[in-house]
């Protein structure tokens, strides 16, 4: 089991709303509108990104992109420079997604999404939905974007700006696309998940979560899906035709509701953040779990690995954050 090695802690004084890790630098989006950049060599830079709260963050090119409740979408350089990409009056930019495969960027504000086809391109005219967009997810190639909303998910082809609808009645509050491209999952307002197998639009429904699922991610080359929203980390099998008729595996600590999951990029090791502020690493194979951050004042709100999986960054609702270093740690 990995041991928490030298760690770096940050005491921000605002909610950590998003986290992204580019090679060599981690970015923390904060409720005071700034994005704090922490380089692997220790250097800290604060980018004054938003007048309000930064609400969403993603890696973009060799830097980052963030959206805020000031209606701005900004590009953030590794040096902390801020360049405005979009400004909408009276709207929150709540979601942003970037495809590493195609370089395309999509952000959502209210019912509209805006596509920036490649870095440097101008935002396209907005594409509208009947209700607000509550989540975004690219397909693996970065040619399609899934937009969650009331009563389903719209799958847009970026090139032709045409959409197909995956429908399911109710309020969908987030969306995730399988890394093999075969499945789309949503989280529902009613503490349940919904999903579609894209080949035949077969539905899947996973209920019984005690809280809303706000985070999920596939691991083991897409064979398993780790989900938050319960005391344990609930893992659903996605090999073959999907999880229909199969049961889930519960792994990890059992004490406090899991608020965010982050599977390791290369190994079957799941990092999970919890409502009690703790962060755990659980080896999927034998369900062996280690606490790498002790319980603290507020829930963990963001969690992500450095792309090589050697460092794990976390952030909490009260602004407490840190980067744990597992370089050289034994498996």
């Amino acid at each position, binding site marked *: 089991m990995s041991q928490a090695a030298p760690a770096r802690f940050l005491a921000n004084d605002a909610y950590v709303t998003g986290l992204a890790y580019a090679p060599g630098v981690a970015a923390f989006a904060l409720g005071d509108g700034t994005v704090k950049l922490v380089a692997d060599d220790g250097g800290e830079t604060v980018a004054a990104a938003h007048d309000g709260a930064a609400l969403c963050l993603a890696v973009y090119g060799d830097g980052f992109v963030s959206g805020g409740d000031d209606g701005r979408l900004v590009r953030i350089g590794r040096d902390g420079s801020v360049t405005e990409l979009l400004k909408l009056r009276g709207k929150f930019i709540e979601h942003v997604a970037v495809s590493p495969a195609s370089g395309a960027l999509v952000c959502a504000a209210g019912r509209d999404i805006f596509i920036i086809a490649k870095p440097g391109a101008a935002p396209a005219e907005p594409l509208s939905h009947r209700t607000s967009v509550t989540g975004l997810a690219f397909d693996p190639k970065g040619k399609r974007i899934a937009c969650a909303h009331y009563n389903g998910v719209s799958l847009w082809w970026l090139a032709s700006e045409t959409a197909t609808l995956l429908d399911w009645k109710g309020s969908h509050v987030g969306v995730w696309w399988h890394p093999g491209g075969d499945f789309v999952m949503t989280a529902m*307002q009613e503490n349940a998940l919904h999903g579609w197998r894209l080949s035949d639009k077969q539905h899947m429904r996973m209920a019984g979560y005690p809280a809303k699922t706000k985070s999920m991610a596939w691991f083991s080359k897409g064979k398993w899906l780790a989900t938050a929203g319960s005391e344990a980390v609930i893992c659903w099998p996605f090999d073959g035709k999907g999880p229909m008729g199969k049961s889930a595996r519960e792994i990890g600590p059992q004490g406090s509701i899991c608020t965010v999951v982050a599977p390791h990029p290369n190994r079957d090791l799941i990092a999970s953040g919890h409502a009690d502020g703790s962060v755990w690493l659980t080896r999927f194979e034998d369900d062996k779990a280690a606490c790498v951050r002790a319980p603290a004042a507020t829930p963990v709100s963001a969690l992500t690995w450095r792309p090589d999986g050697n460092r794990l960054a976390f952030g909490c609702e009260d602004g407490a954050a840190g980067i744990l270093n597992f370089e050289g740690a034994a498996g």
Partner: protein
Amino acid sequence: MTEAAAIPVTVLTGYLGAGKTTLLNRILTEQHGKKYAVIVNEFGEIGIDNDLVVDADEEVFEMNNGCICCTVRGDLIRILANLMKRKGRFDAILIETTGLADPSPVAQTFFVDDDVRAKTKLDAIVTVVDAKHIAGSLKDAKEAREQIAFADVILLNKTDLVDGAALAETEAAIRKINPLAEIHRTTKSGVALDAILDVGAFDLDRILEIEPHFLEGSHSHGHHEEDVESISFDTTKPMNGEALTHWLRTTLTTKGQDILRSKGIFDIKGETKRFVFQGVHMLMDGDLTSPWKADEPRRSRMVFIGRNLDRDELKRGFESCIAA
């Protein structure tokens, strides 16, 4: 950081032209040193530098939670969650609804969503009515009746445009629908802020008295079906707690579509504390709160506000909960 106290949320309803925007502007311009976030549906009518104004879309969503009349405001769930992430949070949040809006999805949002419940609390529903036009609206429009039925506080506004007799008649018509709300007669939405903010209308601990203001003639019958009316019961005999919660639950589950608001304070046999309950349609919230004082006469009293209410059946239900 310790868990911050829940932020109070005030909902402003009322017809277009009744004076909601005037009221909002009054609240925002008054020198009170407080910081408000305002969620509006018509962006641009107000704009005060120090406060945050958010444009909402009034997205009413059905919940698949087994509660057949349960709708919530999906946009509010998201906006409130995002506002809570801002550094230097707000003293209060004000939500303005469109003129014809049904207030129940807004109120139900505060019962149904765990994240909203954890960080904010519904303080009161304030309805602004135009004293000159409300009488006509009450006859013709279901929305006008429901906005009054839902209110904890009513501003009977533009009183300078009607004479005293007409005003008394209008107030009686309002009382017939809602005997619980505080009514303030105003011109140009002029009212002391403490009359509409931090009222604690949904705070069980602050509901110490229920004094329905029934005006003469309010029990008249011969209403047509869509009439919203109120029914109240009281007794000085202690109630059976188990029977009471069962009856309240059953009544709201079966009749909750027609019961808009309900509220009660009960003397439960064997309990030193009062049992306080309140509901919005089928959703209810109830708890034992403060103890009865030694010299305080104990009694149980409750009010239903709704349409198609069967007074006799409700009365039988209430009386069946009196402890043997």
